[in-house]
C-alpha cells in the first residue's frame, strides 16, 4: 500500500474544509463539473476544492468517492455479523486476510469479554440469503484455518434505529 504523502496531523479542519465537507456529505453534485458547483457554493476556486479534497483523500479522511448501494434493493437479504475468536498476537495479520475477501464489508478487531464473549475479530458478510451467508462464513473459516478457535454469526432480526450520522 502507498503511504500517504502527508501525515494525518497535517490536515487542518479549517473553515473551507468544513464547508467542503458540509457541501458534499449528502452527495456529490450530479452535474458535468461537480467541483465547480461546490466551489461556487462556498466561494472559492474549483482547483482549490479539488486540491483540498485530494489532501483529504491522501489522509484517509475521504475513503473514496463512490456509490453506496442499498443492500436490499440489490437483493442482498442475508446480512450477518460473523465474529471470531483468533489468537490475539495474530489478529492484525488475520484481520487483513479476512478484510481482503471480496464479500466482507467491514472487518474490525474489538475487545473480548471473557468468558461470555470470546470473539475479537468481527467481519460483516452480505449475501442474497442466509444459506449463502453461511457459506461465506465457512470460507472465512477456511482462510483462518487452525486459528479459528470458535466463531458465530449474528443475523439481524430488526433495525431498531438508524439515523444518518451527521459529520459536522
Amino acid at each position: 500500500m502507498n503511504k500517504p504523502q502527508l501525515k494525518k496531523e497535517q490536515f487542518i479542519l479549517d473553515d473551507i474544509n468544513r464547508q467542503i465537507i458540509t457541501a458534499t456529505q449528502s452527495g456529490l453534485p450530479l452535474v458535468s463539473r461537480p467541483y465547480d458547483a461546490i466551489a461556487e457554493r462556498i466561494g472559492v476556486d474549483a482547483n482549490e476544492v479539488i486540491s483540498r479534497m485530494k489532501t483529504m483523500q491522501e489522509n484517509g479522511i475521504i475513503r473514496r468517492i463512490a456509490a453506496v448501494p442499498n443492500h436490499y434493493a440489490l437483493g442482498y437479504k442475508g446480512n450477518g455479523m460473523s465474529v471470531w475468536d483468533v489468537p490475539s498476537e495474530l489478529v492484525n495479520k488475520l484481520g487483513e486476510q479476512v478484510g481482503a475477501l471480496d464479500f466482507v464489508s467491514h472487518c474490525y478487531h474489538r475487545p473480548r469479554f471473557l468468558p461470555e464473549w470470546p470473539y475479537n475479530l468481527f467481519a460483516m458478510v452480505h449475501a442474497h440469503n442466509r444459506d449463502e451467508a453461511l457459506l461465506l462464513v465457512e470460507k472465512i473459516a477456511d482462510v483462518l484455518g487452525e486459528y479459528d478457535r470458535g466463531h458465530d454469526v449474528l443475523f439481524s432480526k430488526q433495525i431498531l434505529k438508524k439515523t444518518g450520522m451527521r459529520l459536522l
Partner: protein
Amino acid sequence: MMNDLDKKIINCLQDGIPLIDEPYAEIAKQLNINETELLQRIKTLLENKTLSRFGPMYDAAKLGGDFSLVAIKVPETRFNEVTEIVNSYEEVAHNYHREHEFNMWYVLATETAQRIEEVNNSIEERTGLKVYNMPKLDEYYIGLKLIA
C-alpha cells in the same frame, strides 16, 4: 427495475471515481455511454433508492468525535422497554436486534470519548443491564462491492 446498464453503472461507481474536473465524462466513456445519460441514470438510481448515496465517503472518526459498538443481553420480555431507553439517546446512531444471547447492538457516535462512557453508564443505570462496550481497536477494511 434495473437493466443491464444500471447494473454496470452500479458496479463501476462502487469502485470510486477519479477526483478530476469532469469525472462523469470519464466514467461515461468507460461505459460507452454519454455523460448526460450517465447523470440521468445515477439520479434515477438515487431517487428509487437503489443507491443509498453517491459522493465522498468520509471517515467520520478522523474528523474528531468518537464511536463505539455496544452490546446488551436483553431479556426478551423487556426488549421493548430497553429499546425505548436506548433509542432515546441522540448519540445512539444505529440500533439492531440480532438473533443471539447478545441481542441488542447499538452504535454510539459522540463528540468526545468521555461521552461514550457517560451514555453507557446512564444506559446501564436506567436498564439495570450490563453493557458490553466494544470499540474498534483496529480496522482492516471498510467498503464492499455488491455485484448488482
